[in-house]
C-alpha cells in the first residue's frame, strides 16, 4: 500500500460528516458517567438530559440538512451521504425521541434501572443512522449487529417478567439466525466478486459500487444470485416480512411497550432503508430477480399480516401483526420503486405517516398498560372515551391513520404508494393490497369501537370486567406530545406542503 493511498484514505475520514451520530454516541456515554457522578436524588433528571441531548442532535441535523457531503463518499467509501440518508437521520431521531418519551411513562412503573435504557436507545439510533448511509457490506453488517444486540437487551428489559424474558430469548435466537443468513449471503457475494488472491488489492466485493459493477457485467452469476437472495432473507427477518415474520407477535407482546414501539417503527424503517439502498445500489442490475421476489413477498406479507391480526385480542400483538401488513405495503412501494423512481419518496412519506400514527397509538398504550406490561387486552379499552377523552381521541386518530382513512395522513401515504404501484403496473399486487386494507378495517375499527361505543347490555347486567381508567394519567408534556402527534396526523392528511414538492423530485 503506497503512502498516497493511505493519505487518500485519511483525507476521506471526514469526522464532521458523522457529527450527529458522534454527538448521540457521546451523549449516550455521558449518561452513564452522569449516573456515577450525580448524587442519587438527582438521577431523575437524567432521562430529561437524554431527551434534551436527542432534541439538540435533531435540531442540529435539521439545521445542517443540506450538508457539504451530500452525494459524496467518506471514510474510504464506507459511508455515502444522500438526501434519503439525511431523511433517515431525522426520522430515526424523531422516533428515538418519542421512544424515550414512552420510556418516561412506562419505566417508573417498574423497579428496573432506567439510565441504561436511554443509553441503549441512543446507541441503537446512532447505529440506525449509520446503517441508512452505509456504502459497504462491512459497515452495513456492523451497524446492523449493533442494532440487533441493543435490541436483545431492550426486548428482555423487564427481566422479572417471564414474557419479556421469553421474548428476549426468541428475539435472540431469531436475530442470530437472521444475522447468520445475512452474513452468509454477504460472504457469497464477496466470494463471487472479490479478487482475494491479488496482492495490494483494496477494492473488494464488499463495496457497493464494485458489487454493482460486477453484477451489471454478470447479472446471472449463480453464486451472486444465491447470495442476493440470502441477503434479502436476512433483511426480511428484520422488517418482519413473510415468511420471516414468526417472531413478531410474541416478541412484540413480551417487549416493554417503548421497545415494541422502537421495534415497530425504527427497526422496520431501518430494514426498509437498507433494502432501498441495496435494490437501488449494488443490486440494481438484478431487477428481473428482485421484482418477482419483492412482489411475492409484499403480497404474502400484506395478506398474512392482515389475516393474522383479525383474531388478536391483545393490543401489542395486534400492533405487531398489523405492523407486518404495513411492512407489506412498504415492500409494495419498494417493488414499485424499481421502475417508478419517485416511489422512494412515497415509501419515506408512508414511513413518516406510520411513525406519527404508530407512536400516537403506542403512546396511548403506554398510558393504559397496567402492572404487567404484556397484558394489554383490547377489553381494557372499554369505556376509554368516558374515562379519558383525550387518550380515546388520540387512539382514534392514530388507529384511523394506520387504517388509511381520510382525512388522516395514512390515507395520503397509502394513496401515493398505490398510485406508484399502478404506474409500475403491479395490478395484482395492488388488488391484494386493497383487499388487505378492507380486511384491516375490521380489526382497526373494532379497536376504535371498543374504546368509543358502549356495548349494548341488558339493563342491570354487570359492567365488563376489563374496564379500568388509565393507570398513568398523562402529564402536561404527555398531553402535548400525544396531541401534537394526532394534530400532525390530521394536518398531514390534507396539507402536505413542501413535503409534497419534495416527493416528486
Amino acid at each position, binding site marked *: 500500500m503506497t503512502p498516497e493511498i493511505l493519505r487518500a484514505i485519511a483525507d476521506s475520514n471526514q469526522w464532521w460528516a458523522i457529527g450527529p451520530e458522534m454527538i448521540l454516541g457521546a451523549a449516550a456515554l455521558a449518561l452513564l458517567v452522569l449516573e456515577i457522578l450525580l448524587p442519587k436524588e438527582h438521577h431523575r433528571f437524567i432521562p430529561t438530559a437524554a431527551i434534551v441531548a436527542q432534541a439538540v442532535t435533531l435540531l442540529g441535523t435539521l439545521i445542517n440538512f443540506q450538508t457539504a457531503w451530500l452525494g459524496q463518499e467518506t471514510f474510504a467509501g464506507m459511508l455515502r451521504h444522500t438526501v434519503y440518508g439525511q431523511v433517515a437521520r431525522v426520522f430515526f431521531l424523531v422516533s428515538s425521541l418519542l421512544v424515550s418519551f414512552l420510556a418516561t411513562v412506562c419505566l417508573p412503573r417498574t423497579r428496573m434501572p432506567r439510565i441504561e435504557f436511554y443509553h441503549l436507545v441512543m446507541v441503537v439510533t446512532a447505529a440506525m443512522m449509520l446503517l441508512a448511509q452505509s456504502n459497504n457490506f462491512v459497515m452495513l453488517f456492523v451497524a446492523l449487529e449493533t442494532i440487533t444486540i441493543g435490541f436483545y437487551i431492550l426486548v428482555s428489559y423487564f427481566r422479572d417478567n417471564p414474557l419479556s424474558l421469553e421474548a428476549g430469548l426468541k428475539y435472540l435466537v431469531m436475530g442470530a439466525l437472521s444475522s447468520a443468513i445475512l452474513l452468509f449471503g454477504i460472504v457469497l457475494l464477496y466470494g463471487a466478486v472479490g479478487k482475494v488472491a491479488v496482492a495490494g488489492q483494496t477494492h473488494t466485493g464488499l463495496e457497493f459500487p464494485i458489487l454493482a459493477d460486477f453484477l451489471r457485467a454478470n447479472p446471472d452469476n449463480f453464486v451472486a444470485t444465491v447470495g442476493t437472495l440470502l441477503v434479502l432473507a436476512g433483511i426480511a427477518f428484520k422488517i418482519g416480512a413473510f415468511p420471516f415474520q414468526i417472531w413478531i407477535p410474541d416478541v412484540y407482546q413480551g417487549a416493554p411497550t417503548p421497545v415494541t414501539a422502537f421495534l415497530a417503527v425504527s427497526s422496520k424503517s431501518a430494514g426498509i432503508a437498507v433494502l432501498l439502498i441495496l435494490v437501488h445500489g449494488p443490486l440494481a442490475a438484478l431487477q428481473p430477480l428482485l421484482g418477482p421476489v419483492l412482489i411475492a413477498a409484499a403480497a404474502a406479507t400484506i395478506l398474512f399480516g392482515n389475516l393474522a391480526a383479525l383474531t388478536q385480542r391483545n393490543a401489542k400483538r395486534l400492533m405487531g401483526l398489523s405492523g407486518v401488513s404495513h411492512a407489506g405495503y412498504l415492500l409494495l412501494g419498494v417493488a414499485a420503486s424499481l421502475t417508478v423512481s419517485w416511489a422512494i419518496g412515497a415509501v419515506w412519506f408512508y414511513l413518516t405517516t406510520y411513525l406519527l400514527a404508530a407512536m400516537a397509538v403506542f403512546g396511548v398504550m403506554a398510558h393504559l398498560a397496567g402492572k404487567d406490561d404484556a397484558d394489554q387486552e383490547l377489553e381494557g379499552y372499554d369505556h376509554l372515551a368516558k374515562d379519558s377523552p383525550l387518550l380515546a381521541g388520540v387512539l382514534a386518530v392514530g388507529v*384511523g391513520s394506520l387504517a388509511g*382513512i*381520510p*382525512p388522516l395522513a395514512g*390515507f*395520503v401515504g397509502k*394513496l*401515493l404508494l*398505490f*398510485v406508484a404501484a*399502478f*404506474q409500475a403496473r403491479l395490478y395484482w399486487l*395492488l*388488488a391484494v393490497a*386493497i383487499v388487505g*386494507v*378492507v380486511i384491516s*378495517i*375490521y380489526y382497526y*375499527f*373494532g379497536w376504535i*369501537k371498543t374504546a*368509543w*361505543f*358502549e*356495548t*349494548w347490555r341488558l339493563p342491570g347486567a354487570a359492567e365488563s370486567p376489563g374496564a379500568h381508567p388509565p393507570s398513568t394519567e398523562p402529564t402536561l408534556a404527555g398531553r402535548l406530545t400525544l396531541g401534537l402527534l394526532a394534530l400532525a396526523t390530521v394536518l398531514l392528511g*390534507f*396539507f*402536505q*406542503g*413542501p*413535503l*409534497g*414538492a419534495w*416527493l*416528486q423530485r
Partner: protein
Amino acid sequence: MTFPNALILQLAIATPLAAALVIALGLPKRFSVKLAAVAFVVPAVMALWLWSQFPAGAGARYAFTSQTSTGLDAFGISLHLGLNGIALPMFVLAGVVGAAAGLYALRSGAERLKIYLMLLLIMQGGLMGVFASIDLFFFYFFHELALIPTFIMVGTWGGRDRNYAAMKMTIYLTAGAMLSLLGLIALYVKSGADSFDLLVLRDQIAAEGLRSTWGKYIFGALMFGFGTLVSLWPLHTWAPLGYGAAPSSAAMLHAGVLKKFGLYGLIQIALPLLPDGAAHWVWVLALLAGLGNVLVIGFITIAQRDLKQMIGYSSVMHMGYCFLGIATLSLAGAGGVILLMFAHGLSVALLFMLATSVHHRTHTFELSEMGGLAQKAPVLAAFFVAGTLASIGLPGFANFWGELTIFVALWNFSPWLSAVAVGGIIISAVYGLRAAAQVFFGPPSEQVQNATAKLPFPDLEWNERLPALILLAVLFFIGFWPRALSGPVDGTLREIYPAVETRAPACSCAYR
C-alpha cells in the same frame, strides 16, 4: 365591491368545519348549540344564494371556481372547487338537508349532544365539499370525511343492533370506497394525465382517448365501487340495517345526501370519461337495478313491519330507478336521475325525520303496534302523508319529474324494463300508503292508547315543523317549477353527454 361567489362557495364548506373545530376546542354547551344552529343554516343559505347566482348558459363550464395548492401539485392534486350544472343541484340538496337535519338534531335530546353536533357538522362540511370538488382526490376525501362520522354516530347514538350495524356499514362502505378509489387511481394513471383534476382528465381523454379494454375495467371498478355506496343490489344489505339503527339526523344526511355520492360520481365522472367502458356494463347495471333493486327489494319492502326499516328499504328501491336512468346512457335518463336524486334526498330525509317523531310519541317502530295517530297529531300525519306521496312520485312533487323523465328514457332503452319500473311504482304505492294508513288512520292501537293515557301527546313541535317545512317547501317548489333545476342540469349534460349517447345500445335507435 361585490363579495366574490367563489369565496362564498369556500365558506359554505368551511363554516360547518370551523364550527366543529370551535366546539371541539371546548365551547360551553349553551353556546355550542347556538353556534351549531348558525353553522347548519349558513351553508344552506349560501347554497341557495349560489343557486340564484348560477349563470345561465354556463354549459359544462364550472362556475365559482377557485384553486388552492395543498402541496401535492406535482401529483396533479389541488383543492379545486367549483360548481357545474350537475353539481349545483346536489350542492343545494346538501345545504338544505343539512340545515333540516341539523335543526332537528339541536333538540333531539341526544346524550353528549356536543359531540353529536360536532360530528354532524363535520359530516355537513364534508357533504358540501364533495359536490363542490372538481379534483377527484378531494371529491373522495370529502366523501370519507362525511362518511366516518356516520359510523361513529350509528355506533354511539344508534338504536337496536347499533354495534353490528356500525360494523357492517363500515366494512361494506369501506370496501366500496376502496374499489372506487382503485378505479380513480386507474383513471389517473391510464388516462396519461397524471392528475386527479376532472377538467385535466377530461381534456386529456378527449385529446388522447383511453384504450377501450382499460375503460371497461375502470368503469367496472367504479360501477361496483360506487354501486356499493349507493346500495346496488346485491351489495345493499348494509343500508336498511344501518338506517334502521342510525340516529335520525345521521340517517337523514346519509340516505338523503351522502348516498348520492356514488350516483353523482357515475354521472359526473364515469360516464362522460369512459363512455365505451359504460357501454360494456350497461346491461349488467340495468338488470341488477331493475330486477334486484326495483323488483326484489320492492317486494321485501312490502314485507317490512318496522317503519324505519321500511323507509330504509324503500330508499334502496328508489336507487334502482336512478341506476336504471344511468343505464339508459341518455341525456334524458341522466337528467332525470339528477332530479330524482334531488327529490328523493328531500323526501327520504323528511320520512326518516318524521319516523323518529312518531317514535318519540309511540316509543315503537312496529307498524302493527300503531294506528290512529292522525286524530292526536294531525300536523304530523299531514307531513307524513305528503312525504309518502312525494316518495311514491305523485305529480306536484319534485320526485314526479325525475321518475317521469327516467321512464321516458327507459322506454327508449328497453320497453320491458320500463314495464318493470312502472310496476315498481305500484309496489311503492302499496307499501307507502299502507304504512301511512297503519300509522295514522284507523282505530288507535293499544300501544298508542297507553302512550296517550300516560303522557301528554303533543303534535309536531316547532323544532320539528321547521325542518319538515323546509324540506317540503323545496319539494313543492321543484314540483311546480322543475326548470329551476333542470335548466342548469340540461345545459351541462348537453355538452358532456353527446359522447355517451352515441354508445347507447342499438335497440334504442329504433324508437327515435
